[in-house]
């Protein structure tokens, strides 16, 4: 095509800039009110009902290069200082809202961290809080959530709502235990878990893409189906031959040289099983893949505007089918962590709702693999905090503490997320009209 000579008037007078509408000044009091309530709670809890004694935090384990000293804080004094800090932060947030400025995320994160330190020192008065152990456990409990959330992110980004994460985790857990026990090859168990997860999600994909069944309903039914199936097979196949079929053993921890010796970070991140190292790679790979490769661009286009994807020659339904299956394979690995990574055997309904928490992490993480990972870590931390406090003997009733992870989930998803926009076409089957 040749360039057209310039006797024609320039056809564009509209610059392609953003449409800027006048913006109304909106004051949002949500954050200051929430922060204010927590600041008040901290004053009451740490100050008025403050406990006497000393709270100790153990920061190092024996194998670290450097031994950090045990951090000891006078409980009541620390509580008062921290709650004053919280009040100041809440006041700052109020000032920001008054000036109609946005309350930044970092402010909320700092607030949450300070509150958490305050709560830990209050709860551990007179005891020693194993900080490293708390974090190591949190990462462990987060692993299935993170794998599940990655599967959820991929699946929803391509346009299929994945309620069946729970089923994929459970299938992965069962099959990995069975295969790893029968073959004595843990790596075969991992591979089998991926296949099992992929099978479950390919059923979801087939029904929702080919037969246009409501995706949420298929997902729920699949969860029930996998639960029933694994329960049945556990009773009839695994239990009678527990030694040979449900005894996969736990994967060994592989300390990474040098890195594993760093205090806190080393034991938490670099003294782990192969599954967790695979997880690091998976999180980065999914993030890179989604936002920087052809695969991700096409995947996201299928979930945002499938018709547009179709008109540029992308086979939407094929893209959806294979990526939903891939999502299931990733979630299946998360299931394998239950059996091969932490427990060392399958038991009935051992995923215990992790798939649904992973779903919450997907939404809390706004369909972004990195953010969803952090959301999953938060939920894992809440779960582990509950058990650590039960062990060191916290003043909060254990029944109440058991609710903690779920309360965190609800507050996080309902309160902090509010209205967010997911992939526009998620949940809608694509039918050529």
């Amino acid at each position: 095509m040749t360039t057209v000579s310039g006797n024609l008037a320039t056809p564009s007078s509209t610059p392609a800039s953003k449409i800027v509408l006048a913006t109304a000044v909106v004051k949002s009091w949500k954050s200051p009110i929430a922060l204010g309530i927590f600041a008040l709670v901290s004053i009451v809890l740490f100050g008025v009902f403050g406990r006497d004694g000393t709270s100790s935090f153990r920061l190092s384990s024996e194998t670290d290069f450097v031994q950090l000293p045990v951090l000891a804080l006078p409980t009541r004094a620390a509580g008062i200082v921290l709650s004053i800090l919280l009040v100041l932060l809440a006041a700052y947030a109020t000032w920001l809202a008054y000036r109609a400025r946005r309350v930044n995320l970092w402010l909320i994160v700092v607030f949450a961290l300070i509150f958490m330190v305050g709560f830990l020192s209050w709860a551990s008065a007179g005891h020693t809080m194993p900080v490293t152990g708390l974090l190591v456990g949190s990462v462990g409990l987060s692993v299935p959530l993170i794998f599940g959330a990655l599967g959820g992110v991929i699946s929803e980004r391509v346009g299929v709502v994945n309620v069946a994460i729970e089923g994929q985790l459970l299938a992965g857990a069962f099959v990995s235990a069975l295969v790893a026990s029968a073959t004595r090859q843990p790596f075969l168990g991992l591979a089998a878990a991926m296949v099992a997860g992929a099978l479950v999600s390919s059923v979801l994909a087939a029904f929702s893409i080919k037969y246009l069944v409501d995706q949420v309903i298929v997902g729920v039914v699949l969860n029930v189906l996998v639960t029933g199936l694994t329960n049945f097979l556990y009773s009839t196949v695994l239990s009678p031959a527990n030694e040979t079929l449900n005894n996969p053993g736990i994967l060994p921890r592989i300390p990474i040289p040098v890195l594993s010796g760093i205090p806190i970070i080393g034991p938490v991140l670099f003294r782990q099983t192969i599954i967790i190292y695979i997880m690091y790679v998976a999180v980065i790979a999914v993030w890179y893949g989604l936002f920087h490769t052809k695969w991700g661009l096409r995947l996201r286009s299928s979930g945002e505007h499938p018709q547009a994807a179709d008109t540029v020659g992308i086979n939407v339904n094929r893209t959806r089918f294979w990526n939903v299956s891939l999502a299931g394979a990733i979630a299946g690995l998360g299931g394998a962590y239950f059996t091969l990574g932490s427990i060392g055997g399958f038991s009935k309904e051992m995923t215990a709702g992790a798939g649904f928490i992973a779903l919450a992490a997907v939404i809390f993480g706004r369909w972004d693999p990195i953010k969803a990972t952090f959301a999953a870590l938060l939920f894992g931390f809440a779960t582990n905090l509950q058990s650590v406090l039960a062990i060191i003997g916290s003043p909060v009733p254990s029944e109440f503490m058991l609710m903690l992870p779920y309360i965190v989930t609800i507050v996080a998803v309902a309160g902090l997320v509010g209205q967010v926009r997911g992939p526009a076409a998620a949940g809608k089957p694509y039918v050529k009209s």
Partner: protein
Amino acid sequence: MKLELRGITKRFGALVANDHIDLTVEPGEIHCLLGENGAGKSTLMNVLYGLYQADDGEILLDDVVQRFSGPGDAMAAGIGMVHQHFMLIPVFTVAENVMLGHEKTRAGGRLDIAAAREQVRAISSRFGFDIDPDALVDDLPVGVQQRVEIIKALSRDAKVLVFDEPTAVLTPQETDELMVIMRQLKEAGTSIVFITHKLREVREVADRITVIRLGKVVGQASPTATNTELASLMVGRAVELTVHKDPAKPGNADLVVKNLSVIDHRGQLVVNNVSFEVHAGEILAIAGVQGNGQTELTEAIMGLQPRVTGSIMLDGNELRKASVRTVLDAGVGFVPEDRSEDGLIAEFTIAENLMLDRSNGEPFVKAGTLQLGTLAEFAEKTIVEFDIRAQGIGTHAGKLSGGNQQKVVLARELSRSLRLFVAAQPTRGLDVGSIEFVHTRIIATRDAGTPVLVVSTELDEVVALADRIAVMYRGGIVGIVPGTTPRSVLGLMMAGELPSTPEVAA
């Protein structure tokens, strides 16, 4: 490239959307495909683009028969399409949209965004577009989005470019600019198929015209044909293009809107400090390009917007913050702009749709029980009065044609005694016959002494109906001018430019 369609037939069940259509487009020609809504133009183009498979007939490019099993094949053969509803992904940038489907990658599978940016810039500069490759499509004005669609097609070396109703969303100025672009493309040797139902545009730009009616080619015409000739060819009978209207006899200012602003969920002022009056017995038309706050303005009047400031006085009563029920009870009739989403319930019968807004009491409901006899009687009478063509009052609204659906909405709203009538896009997507009917009813409502507010993005409709015209641009009213204002002035106002002072009426 020469494009030839031979005997294309496409059926949807019993409906024959395309019946042995022949069409030849010579290289470097702008060929107009003229026809009413529902005549089968878009179906034909979707067959050409590989989105549908023809039941019969063949497609030839430079005399070679083509087989398209999907849009990918059509694109590879050199066919590009600018869709009526843009096929752009709103959350992607311009560059990402342009590269989608034929992405270049670097080492590690990394997308080569830089190459895509460069391509966008190269094509933009060839046509004098000013487009930022990194802008999110969602943030761009509609006219610019259309250019992105053009760039997308050209980035795949399209030799035949199909424009499907491209001017529906544009201001008159943008339409003129599009015509310039089309001529530039033609100069460069691209064959263009231009689908439209707007006669003015056809005559301005076309080299040849093919008219389609009810799925068949009914004739060829040259651009020198008159509007009336083209219209009668398109509709199949002689049509009146404008409805007869007596001069308005305006009475009191019944509706007084003062300093009205609407804030959307993102905190933007989608309606920005708008003031106007509508007098009894006059039609105030709100003109403007889609998305400049008209929708939100009508919704604010109806009580459908949550964050509204200012005042809406009808007959001296404040309607701001009133519930929808109160607004209806105050005598406001409303034709929403999307009839199938907001105007009707598709799964309900015509009779049920006719009483939707009167489910709270007599005559249709007594002691919580539907009065089916009364309803049937009313519905029978109404479908005759409003010429609703259906098997009976028990037909589901979703089964009706667009024109008949709109008549159901009109019948429901106009069969109450009204103090204000608000009609948003009352004839969008309707055939010429239904447009005549709707316009006649709107004028009759005005002549009965009701203040009427019509929102339309079609300048033809605005000019045909309005006694006064308010032009909206980016949430504000640019000016309120008499109904006789020339189109050129209205066009400038729709782009946000104030007319020279003497034209501004109170």
